[in-house]
Structures are given as C-alpha cells and as structure tokens.
C-alpha cells in the first residue's frame, strides 16, 4: 500500500527505476515557498565594504588566528589554522587589510560575541597562488589534509569538517549518499546549485566515493525540483562511477541525513548508531561541489550560495563571500520596509539572528527577511492536550509529548531514557501542535542542560581524583618523613651502642685513660658538623641569590620600571616585617 502511494506521488517525468519504495515515519507538508527565489540564476554578490570572518564557523575547536591587525591578505589566504582533532581552517574571503582581530556578535542563537577577523577589501579580489592535486594518485590522508586546510565543512547546515567524514573507518562504506533533498521551505540554494553546477557536484561525489572506497553513489533529490533532477541526471550519465539520481517524495524533513538514508536505501540508522556503521555516509550537494573546487583547483571555501528570500523585492540566490554582513545581502535583494527581523536557515529549523550586522558564515544557507505579516507571532502556548499529533509526525519516531513533559519538569534522566538525543530538532512537532507549544525550545533547553551537567560531572570527577591524590600524597610524605626519622634515630642509637661497646672493649683491652678521647669524636662532631653545614649552605644560598641576574629586562618601558621599583619596595618591606617580631613592634 505504502509503496504504491509514494509511486503515485512521484512525478510522471521520473521513470520508475528512479523512485524508491521506502519511507520514513511521520513528516509534514509545510508550504514550500521555493518558487520566489528560483526565478533568476545565481548572481555574484558585489564586494562589501567590510567583511567580518568568525574563527569558529564549524563543529569542533576554534581555528587559531594566524594574522594580526594591519596584515595585508590575499583572497584564499589561510587566516585561521585548524586546532587539534575536529576543527577546520578559516580563510580571507577577498584580498585586503585585516583591521581587527576581536570579539564581535556572530550568527548564533545566544547573540554573544565570538572571535572574528575584520577584513577591509582592497577591491582587487586578488587570489593567492593555488594549485589542485590529482586525487587518484594521492593518498586518502593527503586529500583529507587538503580539505582540512581548505576549510571544507558540511554546507547543509551541520558544518561538520568534511575531512573527518572521509576517514576510512572499521566499517566499509558501501553507499555514498549525496543529499540534494533540500526539504526545508524557502531554501533553494542547493536546487539552484544542482541546476547550474551539476558537473562539479558529480565530480566532488567521485572524489568522495574514491576516498571512502564506496561501491555506489545515490543522489537523493525531492521530486519538487524536476530541473535539478534533470540536470543531475545529465551530469551523472557522463560519469564512469555507479551514480543513481533518485527522486524522493517531497515531505519535510526528508532532507535529514537519517531520513534520506532510510528513503534511499531502506536502512534504519538506530539510536546511538552511526550511519557509517551501517555502510552509508551522507554529504550535502554543496559540500560535494566545494570538495571538488578544493581538490581540483586548490580553492578554499571562501564563498557559498545563499538564498535571500522572504520579505524582499528580489528573492534570489547569491554567491556570497563568507563574512559579508547580512545587512548588505538583504539590502542587495531589496528588503521591504516592514522587515523587522532576519532568520538564518529556514522557517522550521532556522535561528533568528541577533541583528542584521552579523556576517554570513559557512552554515548560512538561507537568509529570510521576516515581517510580522509574513511570520505572525505564535499564539500563546496552551496546555498539552495529549492529542499525540506530534508523535504521528515525528521523523525520529519519538514521543514528543512525553519528552515535552520531562523537559518541562526538568526530569532530564527520564528525557534521555526516552531518547531525547535522537531528536533532530526538525520542528515538525511544533508545526502540528494544536496548542502551539514551542516543543523544540524545550528539547534544546533539556539537551543543553544535560550537556552542561555532563561537563560538570566530568570536572567534579577530576576534582575528586586530584583531591584524593593530594590526600594520599600528603599521607605518604608524612609516612616517609616518620620512617626517615625512625631510621635516623635507630642509626644514632646503634652508633651510640657501638661506641659504648668499642669504648668498653678498649677499656677492657687497655685500662689507660683514653676513653674520653674516643667517645668525644663519636658524639660531639655531628653537632659541630651540622652547624658548619648549615652555615655553609646559608653562605652558598646568599652567593647564589647575588649571582642571579634578571632576564628579559633590557627593553622595559619607564612605566614597567616604575612598577618593578614599586614591587621591590613592597617586597623589601615585607622582608623587613618578616625579620622583626610583629607582635612586639605593636
């Protein structure tokens, strides 16, 4: 029944072998609103007056800044080096001068500032020298290093470093899934990319298939994008790899990685299991294209396609340099006067921007200018009536009403038991909720609380370990001291005994009056010796202290010299206080 229903859904133009018999649970059909932004070809956004490039645009560690204010940089020059493990590189998006490295508000739900480089373009847009590699004659590790230094991350919105996903793990990846579903309303950047640059996407897919040693490539595209499907089919036909372009039914969130894998291959990726364990790896189409640009031409990720839509005069797709202010982008598209806020991403999963001054980052697939008319404020949340409509649409097959209950009452352990972390925050539950409860907000709250608690637990465990180690160390030191003392006493007692014995023997051997002469050196010298040793040590320490010369003090500013003099004065006073008896002085 299900199979026939979906085949009927699929467009007629798509032949039967390109559809899929599988489906995932739930899903919703929000109004697509995609037509507005697909009327014109991808346009190049003009160079802005100023770029603000954050150093943390990816999952993992913040890139380490390599430039300082005043440096002149070329387009594509590395300005942020990936730091340890999961991280990615950051590049100058155009040639110009770095005017500031500092904290600025970035596109993040918190509205907090993060480390950014401000770049004032010189207008020449001059590329750094760049060179591609032939991946077929290279090692997997080399290709991954190229991608890491080119700053290629997942452009579907996940921004996970692509080089990490191309590692060959212990499970063989059989199927490479290229995600062109683009299920979220309003967003059309992948659609336009597939229409116009299908060849580059297919070449990127070939590189990934080679790196992962996968057998086949499946490209999943929702059937509301017939032009993109046709264009990708043409490009796939020209490839020597086993590539199939599959039209998947249009249903939100069909573009979720787990959902698309389910629809294309029938494989269910269970809770706590990675798709690679099941032999599938999934990449977005724009990621495939940027992987191709990075490997074949040595071009780092300095721009991306952004859909600008919503309350604007000319909704369209623009190729925008990373770091371009959102205000410039919406101004270029002609934002209408009643625009009051901006959303990065789609209306279902996107995040409201703190202000229009933040810059386009690698995750920014879409900017929606919002107005009260376009997105009226949500009606006040009513109590949950347990209608379980949310459970019917949940693509992760969770029980959103229970999760809501647990998150609301802060029963985080229970929420985790009900697989809160399988929630992909797609917002389908909130979309259908008749009580307009902001369910996803509750899940996000619960998730970040759980993460914070786990971090607290780790640090408190570390503190406990350090405390216990310190206790045991102090105990051990005490014991060692006692043992040493006991050994010393024992040795002294023995020496005394020995001396007495010797004296007795000698006295017995020769009854002359030599006894005091022998016993004196046995007892008295240690005391004298110790005194002399202490004295010698004090002298030595004094000499050493006098010999110490301060280092790195050749080029001090007068202010620093004054500070040092001040400290020396204070130190002298403290030493003086320590020398005298404080209580008698008072």
């Amino acid at each position, binding site marked *: 029944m299900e199979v026939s229903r979906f085949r009927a859904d699929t467009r007629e133009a798509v032949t039967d072998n390109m559809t899929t018999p599988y489906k995932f649970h739930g899903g919703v059909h929000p109004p697509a609103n995609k037509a507005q932004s697909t009327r014109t070809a991808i346009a190049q956004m003009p160079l802005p007056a100023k770029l603000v490039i954050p150093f*943390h645009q990816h999952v993992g560690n913040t890139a380490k800044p390599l430039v300082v204010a005043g440096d002149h940089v070329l387009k594509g020059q590395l300005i942020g080096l990936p730091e340890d493990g999961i991280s990615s590189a950051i590049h100058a998006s155009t040639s110009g001068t770095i005017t500031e490295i500092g904290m600025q508000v970035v596109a993040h739900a918190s509205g907090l500032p993060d480390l950014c480089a401000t770049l004032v373009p010189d207008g020449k847009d001059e590329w750094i020298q760049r060179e591609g590699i032939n991946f077929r004659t290279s090692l997997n590790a080399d290709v991954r290093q190229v991608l890491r230094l080119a700053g290629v991350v997942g452009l579907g919105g996940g921004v996970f470093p692509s080089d990490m996903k191309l590692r060959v793990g212990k499970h063989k990846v059989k199927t490479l899934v290229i995600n062109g579903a683009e299920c979220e309303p309003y967003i059309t950047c992948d659609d336009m990319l597939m229409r116009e640059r299908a060849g580059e996407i297919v070449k990127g897919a070939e590189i990934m298939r080679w790196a992962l040693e996968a057998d086949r490539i499946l490209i999943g595209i929702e059937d509301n994008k017939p032009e993109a499907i046709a264009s990708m089919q043409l490009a796939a036909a020209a490839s020597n790899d086993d590539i199939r372009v599959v039209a998947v039914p249009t249903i939100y969130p069909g573009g979720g990685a787990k959902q698309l894998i389910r629809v294309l291959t029938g494989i269910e990726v269970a809770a706590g299991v990675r798709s690679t364990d099941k032999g599938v790896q999934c990449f977005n189409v724009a990621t495939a294209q940027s992987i191709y640009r990075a490997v074949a031409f040595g071009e780092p990720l300095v721009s991306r396609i952004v859909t600008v839509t919503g309350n604007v005069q000319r909704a369209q797709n623009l190729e925008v340099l990373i770091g371009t202010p959102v205000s410039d982008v919406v101004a270029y598209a002609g934002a209408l006067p009643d625009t009051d806020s901006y959303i990065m991403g789609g209306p279902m999963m996107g995040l409201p921007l703190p202000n229009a001054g933040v810059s386009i980052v690698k995750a920014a697939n879409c900017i929606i200018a919002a107005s009260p008319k376009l997105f009226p404020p949500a009606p006040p949340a009513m109590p949950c009536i347990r209608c379980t409509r949310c459970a019917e649409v949940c693509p992760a097959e969770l029980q959103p009403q229970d999760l809501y209950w647990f998150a609301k009452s802060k029963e985080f352990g229970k929420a985790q038991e009900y697989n809160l972390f399988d929630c992909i925050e797609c917002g389908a539950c909130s979309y259908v909720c008749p009580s307009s409860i902001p369910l996803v907000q509750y899940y996000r*709250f619960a998730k970040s609380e759980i993460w914070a608690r786990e971090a607290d637990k780790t*640090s*408190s465990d570390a503190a406990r370990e350090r*405390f216990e180690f310190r206790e045991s160390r102090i105990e051990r030191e005490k014991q060692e001291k006692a043992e040493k003392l006991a050994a010393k006493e024992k040795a002294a007692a023995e020496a005394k005994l020995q001396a007495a014995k010797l004296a007795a023997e000698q006295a017995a051997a020769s009854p002359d009056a030599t006894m005091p002469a022998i016993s004196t050196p046995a007892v008295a010298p240690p005391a004298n010796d110790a005194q002399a040793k202490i004295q010698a040590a004090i002298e030595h320490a004094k000499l050493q202290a006098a010999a110490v010369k301060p280092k790195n003090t050749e080029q001090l500013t007068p202010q620093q010299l004054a500070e040092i003099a001040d*400290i020396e004065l204070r130190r002298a006073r*403290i030493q003086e206080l320590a020398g005298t008896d404080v209580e008698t002085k008072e």
Partner: protein
Amino acid sequence: MLSALLIMSGIAVLLGAVLGYAAIRFRVEGNPLVEKIDAILPQTQCGQCNYPGCKPYATAIAAGEADINRCPPGGEEGIQKLADLLGVEFKPFGGDTNAPKPKSVAFIDENTCIGCTLCIQACPVDAIAGAAKQMHTIISRECTGCELCVAPCPVDCISMQVIEEKISNWKWKYPVFALTPVKQ
C-alpha cells in the same frame, strides 16, 4: 510429624548456610551510601560545610551527623538530589551556611605575587602552579572555585572571578513567555 520437623529444620539449615555464604561472597567494601552521596556533592572541596572536603561531609551525612543543606556550591538542586537519595524532606539553606554564589575561578595578580607558596599549600586540588620565590598561577581548568587560597595570601593578590557566559558554555534557556497587558 517428625519427618516434617526434620524437613523444616533441614530447609532452615540449608537457607542459613546459603545466606551465610552470600554474606561472605558478596560482601560490600565500605559504605555504598557514602559513595552515592559523594557522587552528588560538587567536589569543590571548599570546606564551607565545616568538614575538610566533600568525602568527609558525605560520610557525616551518611552517619546522620550532618544536615543536607550545608553545601552552597551544590545549590538547591544538590539539596534536592540529596533529599531524594536519602528519602528526607528538602531543607532550604539557612543558619550559618553561606548562600550559593555564581561559579567562579581564582585569579592571581601576577605582579603582586611574592611567591610564598601559601596558596599552593591551601589548594585542595593542586590547581596552583609555582615554586618558592617564583610567581604562581592558577590552572583555571582545574580550579574548583573553593576560595581556600584567598585567605592565606599575605599580599591579597588572589581574587575570585565569576565565569562569564561565552558561546562555548552558553545554554538554551527554559522557554518563558512574557505576559503582555491587554487594554480593557
């Protein structure tokens, strides 16, 4: 009659032997309750509970000698967890216990430090690096914010700095809705 008695006493002897063996075989070392309480405590080792560390306080709670509301760094949530674990009533902070403070770490003003090592000796988690007559510094990652190093410093160069909210430690807030007044 006799056989019944024999069977019953036989069973009693057998079960007694099994229980006796189990008591030896599955003997629990230490008091598991102390471990459970210690796991709830925040491990700041600050001594604000008047016990020399979290473990001694946990032992005192388990022995019924201490109240559960003596740990300011654990906050009210910590009291709630202890109350749940021990099956007792929640008790708010009160009496001579300090009020909970925002989480902070110690900071040494390196220009003022004279290198006396007094703070190093006071730190319960070895989070201060330094040596005699050398400048000291806090390893902030390991600092529990217990404030035990502040008092011994002879030159008052240690201050407590509240950990500020950054993107890396930012948390999603509990959804709240502002009530908007409606004109009548």
